[in-house]
């Protein structure tokens, strides 16, 4: 989008208004992505918060080759992946899928997520993260497989395979529910 190009230009020149506008424009989108990936609104909020604080300081080093939206989505996805890895490394951490399922039923998640999507969220949480990531980035993030593959450092075929396997599994999990 041309507006995004201008925003980035102004952001790189130190504009606070540009930063605020970028934030206002993409906050919901990024929070949705992170929440869908983690199935945990609180952690997603932390990721989006930390990302924007870091992004705010990146004016000098920022080099955008693609779209701003894609860049932001990739950054948040990377941070989300790191969060998942950290959880896995923690010996006393709860099983990821169990934790996610328990979180999604918390009052805050229910209040913040669209009604009727909890079932889907629970099913997505049961997917291997690699498949979940491709599905969410493609369908909700609007990213093309090529961009996803590049950000994950895998081939396009691998990204598409993860997408297909993940969707098949979702269909099975949600059999008769959608």
């Amino acid at each position: 989008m041309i507006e995004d190009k201008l925003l980035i230009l102004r952001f790189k020149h130190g504009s606070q208004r540009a930063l605020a506008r970028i934030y206002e424009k993409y906050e919901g989108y990024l929070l949705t992505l992170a929440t869908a990936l983690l199935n945990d609104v609180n952690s997603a909020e932390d990721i989006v918060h930390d990302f924007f604080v870091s992004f705010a300081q990146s004016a000098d080093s920022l080099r955008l080759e693609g779209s701003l939206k894609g860049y932001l989505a990739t950054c948040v996805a990377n941070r989300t992946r790191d969060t998942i890895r950290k959880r896995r490394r923690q010996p006393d951490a709860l099983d990821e899928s169990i934790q996610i399922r328990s979180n999604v039923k918390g009052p805050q998640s229910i209040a913040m997520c669209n009604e009727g999507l909890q079932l889907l969220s629970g099913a997505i949480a049961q997917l291997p993260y690699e498949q979940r990531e491709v599905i969410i980035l493609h369908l909700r993030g609007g990213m093309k497989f090529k961009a996803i593959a590049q950000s994950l450092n895998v081939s396009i075929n691998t990204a598409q395979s993860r997408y297909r396997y993940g969707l098949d599994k979702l269909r099975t999990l949600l059999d008769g529910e959608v």
Partner: protein
Amino acid sequence: MTQIESVEKLIKKINVTPRAQMHDKTLNDALAAQEKSKNEQSANIEPNIWRIIMKNRITKLATAAAVVLIAVLGITFLDKSVPSAYAIEQTIQANHTVRFLHLKSFIEPNDEPIESWVEFDARGQLKNMRLKKPAWLDPEDGETIIVWKDNKMRLYSKRKNFLFIMKDQEIAAQVLENIELLDPKLAVERLKTEQEQGKVEVVIVEPSNKSEPIIVTATNIEQDNEPFPRAILFVDQATRLVNSVEAYKLEDGEYHKMVTVEYYDYNQPITSEMFTLDDVPDDAVLMDETTQEIGLLQGDFTDNEIAIEVVRQFLQALIDEDYAKAGKMWGAVPADRMKKAYGQTRFIRIISIGEPTEIPAMRALKVPCKIEIEKDGQVSVWEPEHSYVRQVHGQPERWAINGGFYGI
């Protein structure tokens, strides 16, 4: 619909609404981090902004602000460590009370200045502005009066006798941002940065004759990529306010004056009539983008697709001699005016419409195209040089022609 498609559709609907509390915290933290980062880094932003503004035809309004900016550049260059009875803080302090400005900006080698009147609110932010743009600055539009009020821009071109009204948050933000650079508080911050980095050499001459101005010459040590590496300020000894600023470029080892900004009537209240355009002739063509739908709805089209479609429909309307539609595609140009501009040419057929390319400085897409036309009995191929399409100001879901095909 298969079950897979249903799942895909459902995933696309996932939406999480940010909580207000977290929203504010993140925004505040991000802005604070940006500010801290700016103070720590060498934010040499002013010349770049100057270049952007001068390239951007849409924000011509900001030209005056950009010229004023040079004055701020000069302030930025000052070094308070230079021994002198005069200190830059005195000027900054004096600026705190300035609510009204009247200034003339002379750009070499033109004699006629850009003249502007600016009113700031109590917080130092732009409230109203009037700008008289001489014809040399934009021969196509000729002498133009631009008034900025309530985030709405009214532009009157004498040569074309049209009044263009637009309201656009993005451009509003950009204009406000440029004016914010005049904020003395921000100037102090930049001053500190420059002081710490030792980027400038400053010479201050304070004449004993109090009727003569203090002359402050600031020269940037790192002159690469600086469009105006030297600025000279003339400061009134009594008021400590800047009377004028000269900006110089460096060419072949010599400084050449490029811009002079002269300040008049500090804090003389400007009448509200100056910030209206009531003196426009009754027969002026009104192009009001704030009251009607213009161009095409983007819908599911990508930016490139909608740009191509706008051009296609615009050209087809000319072929069909449907000037009302062509006017709507252009941006609220009345049909009779479109006919006057295009009616002498017979548009025969569209030969080709190519892939658009982005013109970020204009916030537009350039759509190359070829049309077979007949004019004065001669058939030829017309390739418009400036075939731009853009999002409609204040109607970002719609796209329209951005001028440049024929003059209207």
